[in-house]
């Protein structure tokens, strides 16, 4: 059975490997592009959130490419995400597609559900292989996040535009192909080596920006118009606060297997004076991250990304002006949807970065923490 799953940043690299190890056949739909969005928005309600449209587009393109089953997760008690699968299923049926829906219903215990559904998807009932597959996926997710962190440093300081990215993509192929632990770790070291060979200007005037917001648009380069690259081009060291590994830890990993505090638990305590209760989604993380960045002076500014009509993030967007005043940190909220124009978007980013640079020259608050990362 050929299995497909929707995109979310570089999740396909990790999830694809896991299914391959289990002996399943993966159909990776083309990475989110204009056609995906067109197909998706044509068949979805107008006011639904942006990721829904892209996920639907992914499914349709995957089915065109021969997928026979699609994966989806239902995560409890958060936002519209929990209704995605039932709604998508009705839509695909109405469109006349005959496809098997494998739904990770995380309402019912996580560990058991992961085992049952992976077994259903790949036909592999061996729990040891399953554990190996999950471990491999988690390792790859961690590798991707680590590599991204190194890339952010070099991207902001590179001498020739696009140099660091070129080297990064060379390594990414190696990471994607790796199937064993040793291979993957070797690929990681190679990638970091490639990126570190980028010629850089160490004394360049750099501002640090934290990237927070709804996890899907923060991770998906198509919907955020590759914001990290654009900011890097403007000489910004981007610290992405919400990573694939945080998301996996919070929503997929069973709580027994977790080590230490999740990102959400950390953010919750710092958000407390602004948002007392959990409102679902990543709202509490967004607010907590902004409050933390202001308190510790770990960033010059924050860019907050949210998809249009995202319910939890609208609450966050309403509260952020207050956080901005109290913690004295500049915040730029950007709403993303299918009508996003590139030029206007870049102009706003440039204006924001200019403002931060000027502010930094007047009173430098942020200590160069960037060196700590390398």
């Amino acid at each position, binding site marked *: 059975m050929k299995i497909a799953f929707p995109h979310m940043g570089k999740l396909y690299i990790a999830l694809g490997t896991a299914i391959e190890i289990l002996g399943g056949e993966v159909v990776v739909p083309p990475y989110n592009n204009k056609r995906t969005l067109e197909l998706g928005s044509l068949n979805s309600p107008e*006011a639904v959130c942006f990721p829904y449209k892209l996920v639907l587009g992914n499914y349709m393109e995957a089915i065109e490419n021969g997928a026979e089953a699609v994966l989806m997760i239902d995560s409890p008690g958060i936002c519209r995400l929990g209704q995605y699968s039932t*709604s998508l299923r009705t839509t695909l049926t109405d469109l006349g597609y005959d496809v098997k829906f494998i739904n990770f219903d995380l309402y019912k215990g996580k560990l058991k559900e992961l085992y049952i559904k992976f077994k259903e998807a790949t036909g592999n009932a061996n729990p040891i292989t399953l554990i190996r597959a999950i471990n491999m996926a988690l390792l790859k997710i961690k590798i991707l996040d680590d590599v991204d962190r190194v890339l952010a440093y070099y991207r902001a300081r590179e001498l020739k535009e696009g140099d660091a990215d070129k080297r990064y993509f060379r390594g990414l192929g190696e990471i994607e192909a790796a199937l064993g632990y040793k291979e993957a770790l070797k690929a990681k070291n190679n990638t970091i080596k490639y990126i570190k060979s980028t010629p850089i200007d160490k004394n360049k005037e750099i501002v640090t920006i934290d990237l927070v917001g709804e996890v899907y648009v923060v991770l998906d380069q198509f919907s955020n118009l590759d914001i990290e690259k654009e900011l890097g081009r403007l000489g910004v060291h981007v610290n992405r606060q919400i990573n694939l590994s945080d998301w996996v830890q919070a929503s997929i990993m069973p709580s027994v297997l977790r080590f230490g505090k999740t990102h959400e638990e950390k953010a919750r305590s710092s958000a407390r004076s602004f948002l007392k209760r959990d409102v679902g989604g990543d709202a509490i993380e967004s607010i907590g991250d902004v409050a933390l960045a202001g308190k510790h002076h770990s960033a010059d500014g924050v860019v907050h990304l949210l998809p249009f009509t995202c319910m939890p993030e*609208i609450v966050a967007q*309403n*509260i952020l002006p207050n956080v901005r005043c109290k913690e004295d940190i500049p915040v730029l909220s950007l709403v993303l949807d299918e009508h996003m124009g590139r030029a206007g978007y870049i102009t706003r980013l440039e204006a924001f970065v200019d403002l931060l640079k000027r502010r930094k020259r007047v009173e430098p608050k942020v200590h160069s923490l960037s060196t700590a990362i390398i």
Partner: protein
Amino acid sequence: MKIGIPRALSYYDYYPFWHGFFSELGIELVLSDKTTKKLVSAGSSLVVSETCLPVKVYAGHVLNLLDKGIDVIYSPSIQSIAPKIYNCSKLRGLPDLIRNVVNKNFLLIEPTLDKSEPKQGFYQYLYESVAPLGITNKKLIKKASKAGWECMNNFTLMTRSGVDVPTAMRNAINGKISLVSTQKEGMVKVAVISHGYNIYDEQVSMKMFKKLKQLDIEAYTAYNLTTEQMEQGIRNLDTLLYWANEHEMTGAAGYYLKDNNIDGLITLTAFGCGPDSLMIERITRYAKRFNKPLLNLTTDEHTGEAGFVTRIEAFTDMLIRKKRTSIVNSLKKQVPKKEEEKKLVGVE
């Protein structure tokens, strides 16, 4: 002691309860004025433009209360009504939102009802409602909650019998019960599917019920249904309860879609409503399957009344025509038989 209750959102669902509950404890409730255009724009100026209309209206009502000189405002956060059945994020974070956007000095009473958490049950919610006012006697609170339920049950009894919500609300507060025994039957029956805070707010729904009455259309809403009927409706649409306020949308729609007495459905959504976007999608797809006429209306603070009325009129015209054709067709089925008989007689 006076506390202010904004005439928006949960007011339409729970006000009779609050009235009974707080009156028993000797607390006077002050309501904000009815929604006006000015009030909506005052509320909209506080929050970001993507926020949904009901929340903008709510913020406007809070401002209205503060302008009246009320400095204690009751704003509950209804997190979940049953285990794992959560509300919309904006309603869950409503008090937090108000606290952060309204830059004035006032006491916000923000109790949380979260049935997914073992320690945030109903009595905890009631305790949090009055503890900031200095009432902590749990026996007293329990007794007051009985009075609240009495008032609430009267209200539910009246609405289910067909009394319209504003009248039922007025009667329940005054301790009266009035039931409608015989209803004048309209030409066409339409179910209006929406949240209470949308259809019963005359500014948001633009006096929809009045207009339907003028067109001789009989309107039904979720308030006329029992919970069991609405649960049946959710099953009719092959889904499970997901949102705390799904009963009045999917549930009512599912029930009325299968009800042969109802000629058509009108859904009314406020712009930017998250849960509605997917619920309406499901209702629309199933209306096609069940072959029932459906009109989707979306309103926001800029909606013009003329366009709104035209669409309702066009829809009801269509329903009337459809009904007439079906009656004529059913008559035709009988008529040819008679003609054939005549022909046979003629041949003889």
